[in-house]
């Protein structure tokens, strides 16, 4: 969809290890520097720099009016962002944790997602809602939800989630540049993941809505996103011992959904497993499996399988390793893809 351009750097520093958190912070900083309409608001985003430090330094550089500590009220934050966007600003809202975004659902669903539609295009709302999501960080209750299915089920929202340091920058820039609202889901447990990355020469900002093939393979496709991408890559490496050559597709954008890239992969491999942390029943995997089956039925050698979180409220941290899809569970699913029948 929308593509943003990045400023040409003066002298590009050589790539060096950077975390996803640093890339996100850099994306916010660059967006604010380029466009005075970009405003960041949320709980603790100012002086503290956010509980995950993603907004660290922004208030100092751009002032409290551009990076604002709000009262503690998520519906109020997002509702105020709606009014700010109505007046031509480009708000970037931080929801402190996945489950703390729920009070803002009415604003998100009844107004943010629909304003363009209900005004027949007269009043688009270029709002980015950043939501740290997912488990695996030992967070106590209400700090580890995978809430993407709620957002996916709401027409008018784009739903985006990075899995790499480079994408964290590129996708967040694209989200902020988009004239439509974006729910930008940040995998908490990847905040401190590192990759060689040059913040002075950021990669081209990707258009939203394009999946990326992270690993080429021929025997089956793992369709995944966000925090489960590294899990799938690890599983794919382990699978070589079994003689399976797995392809890994990182969706990056759940809405819009890149049927083209996903189906091109599945048509080639003939087998697919969808992997995510969110609960399976009513979760994103059901929609993805259905789309793949509808489009690739005659190329499929086996039913599309899902590896998802159990259908339980998010468990206590001492038990979360049993809930989250891990390498073994992914490999077990791959083993069930009717290999004997095919040979």
């Amino acid at each position: 969809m929308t593509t943003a351009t990045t400023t040409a750097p003066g002298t590009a520093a050589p790539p060096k290890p950077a975390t996803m958190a640093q890339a996100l912070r850099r994306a916010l900083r660059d967006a604010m520097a380029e466009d005075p309409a970009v405003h960041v608001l949320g709980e603790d985003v100012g002086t503290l720099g956010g509980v995950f430090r993603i907004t660290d330094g922004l208030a100092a550089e751009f002032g409290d009016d551009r990076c604002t500590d709000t009262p503690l009220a998520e519906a109020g934050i997002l509702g105020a962002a709606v009014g700010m966007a109505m007046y031509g600003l480009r708000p970037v809202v931080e929801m402190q944790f996945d489950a703390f975004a729920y009070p803002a659902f009415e604003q998100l669903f009844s107004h943010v997602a629909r304003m363009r539609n209900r005004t027949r295009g007269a009043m688009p709302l270029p709002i980015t809602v950043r939501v740290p999501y997912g488990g695996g960080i030992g967070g106590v209750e209400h700090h580890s939800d995978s809430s993407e299915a709620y957002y996916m089920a709401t027409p008018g929202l784009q739903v985006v989630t990075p899995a790499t340091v480079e994408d964290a920058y590129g996708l967040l820039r694209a989200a902020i540049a988009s004239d439509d609202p974006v729910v930008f889901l940040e995998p908490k447990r990847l905040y401190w993941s590192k990759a060689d990355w040059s913040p002075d020469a950021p990669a081209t900002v990707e258009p939203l809505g394009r999946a990326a093939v992270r690993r080429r393979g021929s025997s089956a496709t793992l369709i995944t996103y966000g925090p489960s991408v590294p899990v799938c890559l690890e599983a794919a490496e382990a699978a070589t011992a079994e003689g399976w050559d797995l392809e890994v597709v990182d969706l990056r954008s759940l809405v819009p959904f890149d049927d083209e890239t996903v189906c091109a992969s599945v048509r080639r491999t003939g087998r697919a497993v969808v992997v995510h942390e969110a609960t399976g029943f009513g979760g994103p995997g059901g929609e993805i499996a259905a789309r793949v089956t509808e489009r690739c039925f005659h190329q499929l050698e086996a039913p599309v399988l899902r590896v998802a979180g159990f259908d339980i409220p998010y468990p206590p941290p001492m038990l979360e390793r049993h809930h989250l899809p891990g390498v073994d569970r992914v490999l077990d699913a791959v083993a069930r893809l009717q290999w004997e029948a095919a040979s």
Partner: protein
Amino acid sequence: MRKSSSTTVQELPGSAAYRPTPPPAWRPRTDPAPLLPDPEPFRVLGTDAAAAADPELLLTLYAQLVRGRRYNAQATALTKQGRLAVYPSSTGQEACEVAAALVLREQDWLFPSYRDTLAAVARGLDPVQALTLLRGDWHTGYDPHEHRIAPLCTPLATQLPHAVGLAHAARLKGDDVVALALVGDGGTSEGDFHEALNFAAVWRAPVVFFVQNNGFAISVPLAKQTAAPSLAHKAVGYGMPGRLVDGNDAPAVHQVLSEAMERARSGGGPTLVEAVTYRMDAHTNADDATRYRGDADVEAWREHDPILLLERELTARGLLDDGHRRTVAEGAEAMAARLRERMNADPVLDPMDLFAEVYAERTGQLREQADLLRAELEASEETGDAGEGSHSPHSPRGPRGEEGDAR
């Protein structure tokens, strides 16, 4: 006898000067006294202030009230003819609706609820455009930026934080803009009301919150809605002034709102205004008010009708004669006739517009679904099946609303 240390009161360090002090974090904040509303609703008509009221303003208010009353009657009639899906009438509340529109300058913004189409019309919006939502046509029949009227808001009080955000953004840009947000008594119980007032006060946003307390939230009376002394008193908790006004006294509402707008304009921050009024009609045409209130109340309020109160004043001051009254009535009648005529024409909706403004660019799935609908439409044209409903101007739930009290 030796004095036992165990019986001696243990003295604190520096005990001679010891005085209890407040907790370290405590500091005095706003003095609540100036924020408190007056004990009785502010009035102009029937008081000494009436003589000083500007005759031109009074006559403008009168003409607008009469037009507003006629507009409400016409819109209600249109529901009975199946030309409007639903109409939440503001009959009895015209003074509030009209005054809200008149205190706005060109650059100011209005944030209406679903009951406030009259305020939008009084601001100059074409009534047909104001009524598209209630007709079952597209949700917003106008460009909000062109009129500086936000879309009519159906979920209660959710438009209030929008008003705060817009006013805040305007102030950050250095623009002289005030947002006026309308809400009912029931809406004051919603979380968004609380959050909006809190944000507005903390940010000193140039916004005015205007509560039309019409006595009922559908069927629930104010006594079951709040235990506050008045709705205006709620302002004090947020650190903004609360003002109480007789909502059927048009010049009084105009004056109180004007003062609140001026306060916002001059950097004084937000104000909460409560107008005490009465909803003379049922919640909507789909509601039956006889189930929850008696005729005596309605009759008492009929004696306190906003048009009646203003007419008495104008007549007493010799500002209104029969000729003028007739001219105003004829103007309102002509407006109603034009509205009736235009609403009787079937609107033409293009079903393909369903996919037009979901996103700036259509997603792949929306392109597929648009193709599906297009094929269905073409097939129905070929078979001569008009596809009932595709161009229907009629109410989705019929003129009487069998589904109950939809907001």
